[in-house]
């Protein structure tokens, strides 16, 4: 085990996989940086420092610095992957998905199906997402709900350094296209990371805390918020069974349903707005498959149906918080039938 920050885990994992597989390439804006500028290449190494040193080590044919052209970045990753490469494409902010949505949704996600199972498109699209930086409406969003709704894509949302290594290694080696969502606020989070080869199969939630009273589901930055809330609730004798979903497509339905059948209460914490979302999807799953186990209505703590605001006070009010999670949990425990 080694202590590492998530941003370094990402860099080191890509490094290990590039060393292991010559067919792996990486593309993105400023993943090298400084090309054509007086400071020279490698001035940046990715604006999140997730590719520092990789260009020098693997060369410009494999670590490909691109113009600001998201559609061409994803299209190029797709074309390379269809013809025998593996590709990691970096979209600098998840919000920029709008610019390349056609390539993701109509092309990459559908190739294998449209082509009758003959093709393979192993692309990992890495996207920093989420709020907490006062980065305003176009640099703070949560996009997992709508990419999870797209058949043909897998969606991964690690929240710890160890999970980042295991899930990113799996994503790179996976033969299907993967949307790999890195929460911006978690890049600096440090933790134990297994040494050597480490893979986590998709579709397996991580048990964060165990408890018998409430099942709590969370992803990304919300996992830490829910953990803080669970610690506070534990002081009041309320036990939270907190699951970090890790991947939303595929989804670990079994772990969710098993937990709810035991606790009888469900609290979903989601950073995305609430309509047609991950939260409502999970709610539908549990209400259709574990209704008889429920002792109370399902509670959802989510962002509101609004863009992510800029000002500190506004973004704090927008994002779910440990306090709101505690309040929702207390409401669940206080519920009495009619």
């Amino acid at each position: 085990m080694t202590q590492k920050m998530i941003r370094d885990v990402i860099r080191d994992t890509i490094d290990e996989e590039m060393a292991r597989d010559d067919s792996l390439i990486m593309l993105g804006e400023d993943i090298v940086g400084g090309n054509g500028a007086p400071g020279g290449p490698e001035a940046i190494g990715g604006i999140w420092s997730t590719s520092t040193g990789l260009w020098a080590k693997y060369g410009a044919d494999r670590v490909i610095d691109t113009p600001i052209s998201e559609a061409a970045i994803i299209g190029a990753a797709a074309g390379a992957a269809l013809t025998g490469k593996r590709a990691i494409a970096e979209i600098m902010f998840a919000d920029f998905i709008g610019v390349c949505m056609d390539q993701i949704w109509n092309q990459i996600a559908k190739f294998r199906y449209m082509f009758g199972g003959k093709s393979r498109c192993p692309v990992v699209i890495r996207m920093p997402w989420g709020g907490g930086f006062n980065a305003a409406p176009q640099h703070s969003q949560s996009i997992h709900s709508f990419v999870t709704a797209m058949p043909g894509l897998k969606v991964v949302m690690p929240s710890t350094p160890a999970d980042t290594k295991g899930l990113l290694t799996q994503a790179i080696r996976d033969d299907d296209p993967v949307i790999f969502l890195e929460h911006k606020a978690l890049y600096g989070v440090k933790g134990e990371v297994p040494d050597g080869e480490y893979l986590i199969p998709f579709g397996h939630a991580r048990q964060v805390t165990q408890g018998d009273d409430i099942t709590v589901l969370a992803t990304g930055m919300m996992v830490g918020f829910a953990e803080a809330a669970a610690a506070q609730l534990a002081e009041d004798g309320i036990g939270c069974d907190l699951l970090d979903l890790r991947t939303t497509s595929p989804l670990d339905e079994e772990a969710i349903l098993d937990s709810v059948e035991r606790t009888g209460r469900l609290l979903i914490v989601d950073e995305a707005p609430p309509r047609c979302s991950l939260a409502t999807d999970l709610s539908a799953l549990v209400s259709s498959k574990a209704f008889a186990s429920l002792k109370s209505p399902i509670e959802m703590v989510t962002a509101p149906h609004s863009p992510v605001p800029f000002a500190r006070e506004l973004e704090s009010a927008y994002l779910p918080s440990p306090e709101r999670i505690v309040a929702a949990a207390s409401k669940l425990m206080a519920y009495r039938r009619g």
Partner: protein
Amino acid sequence: MQLSREALLQAYRQMKTIRMFEERLHDEIALGEIAGFTHLYAGQEACAVGVCEHLGPKDYIISTHRGHGHCIAKGCDVLDMMKEIYGSTEGLCKGKGGSMHIADVNVGMLGANGIVGAGAPIAVGAGITAKSNGTVSIAFSGDGACNQGTTFEAMNMAVVLKLPVIFVFENNHYSEHTGEAYAVGAESMTTRAAAFGMKAIKANGIDFFSVYEAMRELIEYCTAGNGPASIELDCERFYGHFEGDPQRYRGEGELDRIREERDCLKTFRAKVTEAKLLKGGDLDAVDKEVADLIDRAVEEAKAAARPTANDVLEDVYISY
């Protein structure tokens, strides 16, 4: 360079196969035999064949909304193509793609595309692979796709990364139902491509030899590491944007005139017979061979296995 007799016959066979494939589809669609949307390539055969006769299985092409011709020219199985268009599980894409998504990555044909302009960025990626293989990647686009931002991004990125990508713009003068004279703001697609910093030439898209010779030069240029290039091919679309299009945008007598004066198959026949490279009888024999192939393709497609509800969920993922 003089083409061999075999090469000439093969080029003619490919063009004729495309023509008869499309003309037969036109009839079958009118009879209600085929579901969905179909966009026919007839009239543009010299473009696809003039390009693809240079290519091998490790060269890649990405096609357009009008993809049957590129598919045949790149070597996709004609019988399996017909089965696909009829929606059979025995089709090239097991009945999951149909006309607009027809593809066979195993022969380097990376797909027709339902989204106009989506192909060029994908060709850039195939160009990354081609660069490491010493081959080329071809982005076919029409005068419609040439106006999409994706095409601009792809052209710029191919120049920046110095990739062996050839942007082939087939100018049939109609982007769907709108004239090129209106929709292409630049003086021409060629001047626009040149402005991106690449070698940009034009050729006569109704003359196989014009396309073929121009492409030889561009492929040599691109595989020598000079970066991308583009070629604009002036050609004609004999049918509407889609089957069922009443084509009210056409001029008086235009369809008859282009079939009479600007038919690449007639042009080819006249050239090779006048130069005494082939006899009319040689070409007639190919016509007969192709007609039999298309008859057989339709007959087999009509009898081929149909998908069932159980097939819906197959091939969404490799593992899930």
